[in-house]
């Protein structure tokens, strides 16, 4: 009885020191804490400058705030339809048929069909609501031209909620696009009218000829 009592006390002591020995050993282990923001964590290289631990910096495929490369976008609205929470809002208008090119001037290929991407509509609005976005990457994966993609930016404090809606089409660009669309519309209208006129003339002619035969 008494023996068990003292045994318990002894166990209590030794078990504490067992744990303490590990805690003590940990004092000599490399420190893993990253002192953000003093340490630049955006890539493996920059993190190694000031940080001696074994954690890695952000990878290149990090899923941060979205960005749009207007030049590549064909306004196809696939990303808008793919997004599960509707945080992308796209409006577009007709434009001249062009082929988007990348920075080096090469035509952009559709990633899925490997054909050259063709742009027939211009953006008049492209808003991404970062406040709603969950950075799932579905839109990036679905975009055929790679126009929308994630950046490494993850600091998203803004002063108000409106600032969290990223607008990629300025009012000026929108005006130009809308104007051009109206022109195209007018041209198309004019063409249509001319065609109708022609057809009408041809019909009348035909009728006249018919009448003459009789």
């Amino acid at each position, binding site marked *: 009885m008494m023996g068990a009592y003292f045994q318990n006390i002894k*166990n*209590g002591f030794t*078990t*504490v020191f*067992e*744990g303490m020995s*590990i*805690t003590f050993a*940990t004092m000599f282990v490399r420190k*893993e804490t990253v002192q953000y923001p003093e340490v630049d964590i955006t890539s493996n290289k920059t993190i190694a400058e000031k940080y001696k631990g*074994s*954690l*890695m910096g*952000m*990878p290149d*495929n*990090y*899923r941060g705030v979205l960005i749009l490369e207007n030049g590549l976008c064909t306004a196809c609205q*696939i990303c808008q339809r*793919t*997004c*599960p929470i509707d945080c992308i809002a796209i409006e577009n208008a007709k434009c001249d048929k062009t082929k988007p090119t990348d920075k080096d001037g090469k035509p952009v290929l559709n990633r899925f069909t490997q054909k050259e991407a063709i742009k027939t509509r211009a953006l008049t609005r492209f808003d991404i609501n970062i406040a709603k976005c*969950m*950075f*799932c*990457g*579905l839109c990036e*994966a*679905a975009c055929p031209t790679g126009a929308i993609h*994630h950046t490494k930016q993850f600091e998203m404090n803004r002063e108000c909620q409106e600032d969290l809606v990223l607008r990629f089409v300025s009012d000026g660009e929108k005006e130009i696009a809308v104007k051009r669309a109206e022109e195209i519309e007018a041209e198309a209208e004019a063409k249509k009218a001319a065609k109708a006129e022609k057809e009408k003339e041809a019909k009348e002619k035909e009728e006249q000829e018919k009448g003459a035969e009789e």
Partner: protein
Amino acid sequence: MTSALKTEYLTINMGPQHPSTHGVIRFILKTDGEIIHECDPDVGYLHRGIEKLAESITWQGFVPYTDRVDYVCAMNSNLAYCMAVEKLMGMDSEIPKRAEYIRVIVSEMNRISSHAVAIGAADMDMGAFTPFIHFLREREHINDLFEMICGARLTYNYICIGGVNADVSPTFLSKTAEFLDHFEPIVEQINRLISYNQIFIKRFADVAIVPPKMAIDYNLVGPNLRGSGVKFDIRKDKPYSIYPEVDFNVPIGTGRAGTLGDCYDRYMVRVEEINESIKIIRQCLKQIPDGETKAIVKSSIKPPKGHIYFRTETPRGDTGYFIVSDGKTSPARLKIRTGSFTGMSIIPEIARGVFIADLVAIIGSLDVVAPELDR
């Protein structure tokens, strides 16, 4: 002599904001001094209606939502849902072998990190803060590895219907092997630090005993069930993916420090499962073939009419997805059956007559995660 003093039970609230409830859960306790007379868990504080949301979004669009069902083991949730949909579409045999291996590697890695958090949190609830910090440090390495393959640290959206979203690089595989070599001794080290600690054992042993029959009656799943000595693991008993091709044991509770099915048994099952997961990943890393990582899937799928119930073994036990499809672009009905919920339902029974401080031990040992509980 009848007492002239009128006595009654004192009703107190534990939670919703309580450090040991792992999220927001509320317990309404009727106590008699230190002893709990009745414990009534009140769940639903984290209900987000994920099951209902599924009815209005596309099949693929729901995958990121499964991350949020259980954020501690998002890969396993992804896997459970994707495999259910694949089965519903009858394309489960088309999944490339490499994708299957990657899926098992990442979900076992996630099991390690989830169990690390579960064990660490249980220690923390018992007043030992240090092991939690050790485990979180190790979990950061796993998060780093996941970030490398999918670009996110917690809500991965990596496993998709038809395979995985991106192939893994050889660097990832070698880094994973490196991590396992580094992590394996640490498990033993942390065992010495806390699991074999006499004070900790005294605190956990013989508390909240769940006999095997009771565990089955209350439908406990996963480590909680195995802690009661019932050898049932979906990976072994209803194998899916490539689990039949790997060799691993199913650890069960044996009454190591006291009675079979006490808190310490449930705790130790998790510790041993970490070692088994390490074993599985090692084998997968050896066997992983080259090849495709995604089967051809349309961008907007419409599974045929019908329903499916598919179970997978996640760290919190047997997670089942019941999905009804009416042939449209989104599920007609989706129901998620989670391990935390059944773990919660047994608490009123086992918490009767224990100390208030022991309730914390019970919650810690059952590894209840609030968002998974409420969905």
